[in-house]
């Protein structure tokens, strides 16, 4: 039997995250976007929620509870508060999950405990490259093996919290394989750019990394001698993005419904006009669709099945539909849609931005 019923624990998680998003995320989202920064106390509060440490095994200080579906539920709720702030809250998880899933025992022992402490600590995935037709699973960055070391060269963009991450997980071609390498921020030859200037989700700091013959010990190759399967890293991150986009779409819809019921034009609420009513039903259907695609992919990740196709479907569908929904959000609000007093123009920019992360829709 296929059931979409949440467990009691998942319901509690959903309710707790929804409450958090309503009280702590939505009210500050506009200010973060305008100021192009996220306040430190927001980062501290999210850290206390243990979003990342919940997933880390108990022996390293976490709660040892990993479920890709529960994570998708968390991300939808946070994303319905604000996409940029949701990503900030979960920032270290791409790195952390890769270590948990594919790291050696030594890598787990070395890196995981820092994410279970009292203070915010982050590390980032460096997957995307700034050239045309960039495919994170096929990077141009290269790793050359040199005795007991690897020498990395290449360029990575949209690296989250490049300004404060302690390590980067850099995807690079290693001979005929693609591998991931843990690069400490103070590595020689690594240059971290000033924050990138982005169209949407401006509160988030992203940076470009330039790696010029950066040497790391062979032990920094994720998975050690075995190497790793980078598709699994990308699958998890695509499911996460799809979940956030589901939240974003829900947020647009939940804002538009009461607006359309109250806004009167030509003697009746615009929600009575078929062009608006049909549009909003389609927005609703698409939001449901993205949730189910996301949960399906998450379920495959959770069961350890190959999730590459499912994760790509979820992300690609979510990206396309989120843009469409955000666009309609602006449309439904008419003149109010593009003024900064209303949030829809911010969501529109965010949807445009998140849809390009990790491969364009057309790729």
């Amino acid at each position, binding site marked *: 039997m296929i059931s979409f019923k949440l467990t*009691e*624990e998942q*319901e*509690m*998680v959903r*309710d*707790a*995250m929804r*409450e*958090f998003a309503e*009280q*702590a995320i939505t009210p500050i989202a506009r200010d973060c976007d305008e100021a192009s920064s996220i306040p430190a106390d927001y980062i501290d*509060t999210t850290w*206390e*929620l*243990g*979003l990342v*440490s*919940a997933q880390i095994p108990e022996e390293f200080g*976490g*709660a*040892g*509870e990993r479920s890709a579906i529960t994570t998708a539920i*968390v991300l939808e709720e946070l994303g319905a508060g604000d996409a940029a702030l949701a990503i900030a809250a979960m920032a270290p998880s791409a790195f952390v999950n890769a270590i948990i899933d594919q790291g050696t025992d030594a890598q787990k022992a070395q890196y995981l405990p820092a994410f279970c402490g009292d203070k915010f600590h982050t590390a980032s995935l460096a997957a995307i490259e700034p050239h045309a037709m960039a495919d994170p699973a096929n990077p141009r960055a290269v790793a050359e093996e040199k005795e007991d070391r690897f020498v990395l060269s290449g360029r990575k963009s949209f690296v989250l919290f490049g300004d404060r991450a302690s390590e980067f997980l850099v995807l690079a071609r290693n001979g005929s394989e693609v591998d991931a390498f843990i690069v400490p921020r103070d590595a020689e030859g690594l240059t971290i750019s000033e924050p990138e200037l982005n169209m949407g989700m401006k509160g988030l700091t992203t940076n470009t990394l330039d790696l010029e013959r950066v040497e790391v010990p062979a032990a920094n190759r994720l998975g050690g001698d075995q190497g790793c399967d980078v598709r699994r890293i990308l699958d998890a991150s695509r499911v996460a993005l799809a979940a956030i986009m589901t939240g974003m779409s829900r947020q647009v819809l939940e804002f538009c419904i009461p607006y359309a019921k109250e806004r009167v034009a030509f003697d009746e609420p615009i929600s009575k006009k078929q062009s608006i009513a049909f549009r909003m039903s389609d927005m609703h259907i698409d939001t449901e669709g993205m949730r189910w695609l996301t949960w399906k992919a998450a379920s495959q990740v959770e069961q350890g099945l190959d999730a590459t196709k499912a994760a790509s479907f979820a992300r690609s569908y979510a990206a396309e539909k989120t843009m469409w929904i955000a666009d309609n959000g602006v449309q439904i609000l008419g003149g109010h849609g593009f003024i900064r007093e209303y949030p829809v123009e911010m969501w529109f920019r965010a949807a445009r931005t998140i849809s390009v992360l990790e491969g364009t829709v057309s790729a």
Partner: protein
Amino acid sequence: MKVMVCLKQVPHQDARLDVNADGTWIQDGNIKFEINSYDTYALEEALKIKDAGEADVVVVSIGPDRVTQALRTALGMGADRAIHVKDDDADLSDTLGCAKILAAIAKEENPDIVFTGFMSDDGNFSAVAPMLAELLDLPSATGVLSVEVGDSLKCERELEGGALEVVELPKPCLAAIQTGANQVRYASLKGIMQAKKKPVDVKTMADLGVSDAGAGAVKAKIEKVYVPPKGDSAEILSGSTDEIVGQLVTKIKELGVL
């Protein structure tokens, strides 16, 4: 130190409330519930004591199955243990019945401090806390905005007109906490995940040796719950402000109220 917190689960503030078929309570089968807002502040006071040093925080609730979620949420926020009085008859108690059941638990647990909410969001009795204190013969304070724990419990109480009153209660004691007393923490994801490993004891009135609570012991019986009928005599005036003022003056004159 042991701190006991009494938590009631009440209909969610956004829940739609309809009266049930026999007009004795609301239809509560299909609505969302949450922890009574006052009780979240009471829990936060207990967790602050725990954060500051050693304290074992026990949360207690009387109610049906759904109450587990309130207790799990409290465990997710940091409470150590939960006691769930799950007993259909206990749910039908009046305020004194509730207080008797909670008193039986307090007698088993012997807490140094009992925290309750000042009142419930749904029943509004503000009665359980002082009754519980009396049954346990504990000094108590209601409407408490802040506490300071030492050998005794110093409580700041809210009085009329913004004035505050400070009372000192020797321990063991009871304080009924007012809303806004503190900044209630969020249930953490890590905490919720860990909560399932924390114990929840389920008890009945019989387990607690309580026989004088429940439906049979009710002194104040709920006769009827209803939504007052809407009057049909309201008239909404329309037009420009000047027109409305003119119509209003005419009406007042017609009615002869001036």
